[in-house]
């Protein structure tokens, strides 16, 4: 009466599924997105919507080309997550073709070319951001000073459409530079750090995020809130974010002790740019980060080191995107060499030595 092909293995399963994981990550991103939209007005909303919709469109296109079931693939929500993550890293008033082109590149070249979910070596959002930064440096570095939604300076609906769709120039009153860009140009001009920092940097202000910057990256506290939600929901491990933030803070603190006039402190680094967004949402992307805990610790530390190098000595003010791509490239090697110790074997794989019989008192630990 029961027609079955023999199924093996557990017949009950943990309720967690891929779509629910992705939905929780998107939920964790919502506070930062809403704050970004409030901060930078309607054009920011346009960018977010454009990114998410075009992500779904491109994913649907690729899935249709390979003749796969549309419902099954789009339902796992990874396209929405990629679109939203990319939107949060773009300049708020970016023109429409930056948003759509970037998302297209992320979904098509970043993920679908490799065969869909789980096959891509690089994080699609970061890949698109690097591609856009290299291809359109001007559009990717026109920052906007915050113009809250209902304040007089904020563009109304019609103006927001013109800004997004036929690329009206940013009015001078609103144009401004991000803290990182400002400090780098001042340092290049030979100013000592305290002067460059004095005018712009207040830890609390930077924490709340009432400053120029990418759409969703400005409010560090809201992103931290989203990250803690993910940790509490057991969606991500603490190993990558903690090792990333700790290493970055340590590096910044060490160099600040060495030469306070030319190296900024840990708080400055942690609260600026895409560090907090990367720590909880980009570095912990399961597909492109190592699968073992030791590997994740190394992955976080490596990213922090590269971010610090590029920010301090590199050509670009913000190095998170490059650092993530380089460490993604190293992930297969990290997974190859960092394996857990097997039961009954030493770390090198040889069987454990037999414990001497007389010292078999239970209290002695079994580890070699």
């Amino acid at each position, binding site marked *: 009466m029961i027609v079955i092909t023999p199924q093996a293995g557990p017949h009950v399963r943990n309720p967690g599924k891929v779509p629910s994981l992705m939905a929780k990550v998107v939920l964790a991103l919502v506070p930062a997105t809403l704050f970004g939209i409030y901060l930078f007005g309607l054009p920011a909303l346009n960018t977010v919507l454009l990114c998410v919709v075009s992500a779904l469109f491109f994913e649907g296109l690729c899935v249709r080309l390979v003749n796969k079931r549309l419902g099954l693939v789009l339902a796992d929500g990874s396209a929405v997550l990629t679109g939203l993550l990319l939107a949060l890293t773009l300049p708020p008033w970016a023109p429409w073709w930056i948003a759509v082109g970037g998302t297209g590149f992320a979904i098509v070249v970043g993920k679908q070319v*490799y065969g869909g979910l789980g096959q891509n070596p*690089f994080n699609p959002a970061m890949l698109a951001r*690097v591609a856009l930064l290299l291809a359109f440096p001007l559009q990717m570095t026109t920052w906007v000073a915050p113009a809250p939604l209902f304040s007089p300076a904020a563009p109304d609906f019609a103006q927001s459409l013109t800004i997004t769709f036929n690329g009206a120039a940013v009015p001078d009153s609103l144009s401004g530079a991000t803290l990182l860009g400002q400090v780098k140009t001042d340092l290049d001009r030979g100013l000592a750090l305290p002067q460059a920092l004095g005018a712009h940097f207040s830890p609390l202000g930077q924490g709340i995020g009432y400053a120029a910057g990418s759409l969703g990256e400005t409010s560090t506290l809201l992103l931290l809130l989203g990250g803690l939600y993910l940790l509490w929901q057991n969606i991500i491990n603490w190993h990558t974010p903690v090792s990333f933030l700790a290493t970055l803070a340590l590096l910044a603190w060490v160099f600040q002790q060495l030469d306070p006039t030319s190296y900024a402190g840990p708080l400055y680094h942690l609260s600026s740019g895409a560090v907090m967004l990367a720590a909880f949402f980009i570095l912990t992307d399961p597909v492109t980060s190592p699968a073992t805990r030791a590997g994740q610790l190394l992955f976080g530390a490596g990213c922090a080191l590269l971010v610090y190098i590029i920010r301090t000595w590199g050509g670009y003010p913000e190095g998170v995107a490059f650092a993530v791509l380089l460490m993604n490239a190293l992930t297969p090697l990290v997974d190859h060499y960092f394996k857990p110790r097997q039961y009954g074997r030493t770390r090198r794989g040889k069987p454990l030595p037999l414990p001497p019989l007389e010292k078999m008192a239970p209290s002695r630990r079994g580890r070699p």
Partner: protein
Amino acid sequence: MNEYVALLLGTALVNNVVLVQFLGLCPFMGVSGKIDTALGMGLATTFVLTLATVASWLIEHYLLAPLDVGYLRILSFILVIAAVVQFTETCIRSLSPVLYQALGIFLPLITTNCAVLGVALLNSQQGNSFIQSLLYGVGASLGFMLVLVMFAGIRERLARANTAALFAGPPIAFITAGLLSMAFLGFTGLPLR
């Protein structure tokens, strides 16, 4: 001292032989199937590149310059590189036949690796001192090995991915190499030569 370290890191990362200067692409694509063979190839190329750089510097300064036959530079460098490769092959064949089997045809092919000749020629073109050209050689080969092994890791994983039939195999490898070199552009601007 840090001038030398800057040179070493600069050649290895900033203007990486494979991903920025686009030299030595055929072994980069050919031997990056498995991590172990890639590692073997990387070590063999490091050995060859360092020896060849040293030998080509000596020949440049103590043979070609005094006799003023600079135009023989390419010919003699290729001769030296071929000899060094043959020497490496003899060593590997006797020291570890397993690696020799694994590398197979790609070991003699190091002679045709344009990174090896490229580095030697760049050294003589920039008129580096002995230490500089040695470090330049070591940096270039370390960069080559790092990128080769990294790419082998990715390709080993891509071999098990579910790529569509259109992209499976070399196409996806070339796309990934392009994206990898895009990521390496992050190092531009570092104040290293």
